[in-house]
């Protein structure tokens, strides 16, 4: 029996090339799986490796990747946020509502991001100040936000007619679709924050050992509230892109997106136990799922079988992943 569980970390720097190579594999195994998937996709469909399709996939992925970025922070502090989809729907509805009321675009965007942020902060306060488990707190907020969206929209999509607004979801800058740019900016920023700021490092410390973080004088509560706030804010950003793409706010927007976002985070290597992982992995996780969807559609796999295929590929990906990490250990 080899219980040498904790061996893996020690290596990083020194010793043999073989081990370095394995370290590399270990650290970037999701990336490898992703490339593998892309290569397979290229073989299976001629349309896959065209610039326009790549832009297409990236644009589709942007909404979930942005939400999953916020989810990454929440999971890093060992929490979970089930309300992201519902908050996205409500922020989108507010956006459309404000635009329909004839107010300028910047007011609408401000209103919708503030609403997203507020919902996130409420989550954070319930979780960190009242000690309610985040799963149940955000589930309650999810149900409430859904209800508020239905009440506000009366169950109908709200159509947006502001043509300038279309640019956010459908415009391009230097040929690159705007949602893609927004996505990379946000992920880049979060990557930097997590790595090079004390706020970022505290997030890891809280997830790793909350008690020790409190004793190190870290304001654990405020940081938790901030993390949930960021998740809510990023839900609103996704809502803006989504609403702009459809030029209407859907009351059902984001239904079930929380599970996809969590899946992206976990496939990307962030542990549900907190304290370990990062946003780059999450991006890759989201891309894996996005490429998979895209490929199955490109190949026109029957919808009944799409589910099966999708489940199997995810399973294979995580199995390869766990293989790699075992390889490394032994």
């Amino acid at each position, binding site marked *: *029996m*080899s*219980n*040498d569980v*904790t*061996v*893996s*970390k*020690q*290596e*990083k*720097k*020194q*010793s043999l090339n073989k*081990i370095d190579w394995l370290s590399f594999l270990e650290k970037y195994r999701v990336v490898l799986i992703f490339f593998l998937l892309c290569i397979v996709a290229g073989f299976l469909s001629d349309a896959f490796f065209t610039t326009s399709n790549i832009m297409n996939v990236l644009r589709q992925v942007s909404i979930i990747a942005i939400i999953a970025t916020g989810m990454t922070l929440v999971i890093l502090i060992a929490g979970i946020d089930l309300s992201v989809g519902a908050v996205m729907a409500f922020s989108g509805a507010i956006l459309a509502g404000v635009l329909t009321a004839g107010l300028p675009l910047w007011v609408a965007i401000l209103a919708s991001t503030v609403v997203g942020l507020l919902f996130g902060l409420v989550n954070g306060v319930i979780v960190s100040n009242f000690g309610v488990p985040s799963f149940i707190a955000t589930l309650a907020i999810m149900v409430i936000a859904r209800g508020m969206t239905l009440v506000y929209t009366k169950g109908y999509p709200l159509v947006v007619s502001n043509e300038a607004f279309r640019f956010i979801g459908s415009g391009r800058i230097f040929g690159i679709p705007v949602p893609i740019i927004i996505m990379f900016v946000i992920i880049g920023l979060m990557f930097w924050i997590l790595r*090079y*700021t*004390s*706020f970022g*490092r*505290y997030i*890891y*410390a809280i997830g*790793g*050992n909350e*008690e*020790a*973080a*409190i*004793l*190190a*004088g*870290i*304001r654990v509560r405020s940081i938790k509230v901030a993390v949930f706030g960021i998740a809510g804010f990023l839900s609103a950003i996704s809502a803006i892109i989504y609403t702009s793409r459809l030029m209407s706010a859907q009351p059902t927007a984001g239904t079930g997106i929380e599970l996809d976002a969590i899946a992206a985070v976990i496939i990307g290597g962030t542990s549900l136990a907190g*304290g*370990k992982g990062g946003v780059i992995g999450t991006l890759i996780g989201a891309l894996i799922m996005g490429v998979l969807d895209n490929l199955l559609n490109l190949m026109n796999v029957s919808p009944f079988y799409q589910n099966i295929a999708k489940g199997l590929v995810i399973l294979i990906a995580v199995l390869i992943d766990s293989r790699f990490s075992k390889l490394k250990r032994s």
Partner: protein
Amino acid sequence: MEQAVLEMVGISKEFPGVKALDGVSIHVKRSEILALLGENGAGKSTLMKVLAGVHQPSSGQIKINGKEVSIHGPKHSQELGISIIYQEFNLVPHMSVAENIFLGREPRLITGVIDRRRLRDETRQWLEKVGLTALSPDTLLANLSIAEQQLVEIAKALSFESNIIIMDEPTATLNEEETEKLLNIMRDLKKQGFGVIFITHRLEEVEEVADRISVLRDGKYIGSESIKNITRHQMVTMMVGRELTDLFPKLQGPYEEPALTVERLSVREYLHDINFTIKKGEILGIAGLMGSGKTPLSKALFGLYPHKEGTIKVGGKTVNTPREAIDAGIALVTDDRKDEGLVLGMSVYENLLLPSYRRISSFGVLHKRNKEKIVDRWIKALNIKVHHSSVEVGTLSGGNQQKVVLGKWLQMDPDVLILNEPTRGIDIGAKAEIYQIMKELAEQGIAIILISSDMPELLGLSHRILVMSEGTITAELDKEHFDQETIFQYAAGGELHV
């Protein structure tokens, strides 16, 4: 020569980047207590984990009663008659004491159904052996103090009734009294013919019970000697590889200005009406039995109890939260490094820096250059045995983990340093270094509150000692007045001595 019950020959074990064991050979006979000694990170725990089947050695052989065996896993090790108390606890928090002791071996009514009455009765028997007579077998483990948990671990190990019992620093978390009890248990075991391997950094314990010592250094076997033929001084030299003079440095007198003042401090059932002042440059010892409230006091001073009454003042500032405590210049080295002191999954590097991040960043952005300087400084100053600072702190040996906890608070340049069992699990060489550091800090005017169940340490370092009992201070003793006897008397609930 009598046949050894256990013999390990030429054992090597490598972890990536570390050669933890390099051809180590030890043996233990029936009715013998072998003390396994060595500095932090010498490889003692690793050697024992090889015996317990947790680690597979990369080479070497193990013989039990002269027969070579290979140990496949923990269960197999138990079957071979080996039972072990790990340095880190292996208990399940939300299960009862009884369930923890018999985990995996519960008495059954029929297949699969536990005989709860027998479980309870048998547990009581083992708890009595370790002196936990009043503890109900149904108590949840999470409700026990660290020392009680340690005793439960010991009861558990005894309950296996194995031939070979390994104890990896069982006394580190025990006070004098329980330690004495445990040493008696060990003598008992010896009488009954068991072979015992005992790891400790307290050499007086070694002299009291061990028959023989074996010493490791840097993963290598240094030597073995009968206790009759060796002095404490020689033991230290074998372990450290150099001469060690004065363990306790000479202290200067404290300054006059007060550093921290506590008035009418009460915390629920833990602390009642605590009043004292500590001066700059003073080392104030705190003594008391288990449950006397030393740990709650340390936490209260650090602002951890929001519902406390009374005031804590440092340089005119009052302290109500850990953050305020840190801002006021207080640092707390907790006695529970695993749960409170360290983020085990993070690197040594980050653990050393965690409380300092606020200082070495501007607008929240960290400066890389400062970080590395700080880390290198403390790894050197405290002689932390780690081959690179990016290593996860959880993989360090127990004593080296403790040094990381110390380092991260020393880096904060505190005005008031609260040390709760600071040398728990730390080897004698490093202890001397830490004591030296404490002396220097005190000379710079830093006030040190030293909570320790290590009597020689307390007596040797304190200017003054407060004795606690049941949440109150029962005595305040000056250097001229304190001795072990007096302290025990007050700790057991004597009257206030002014």
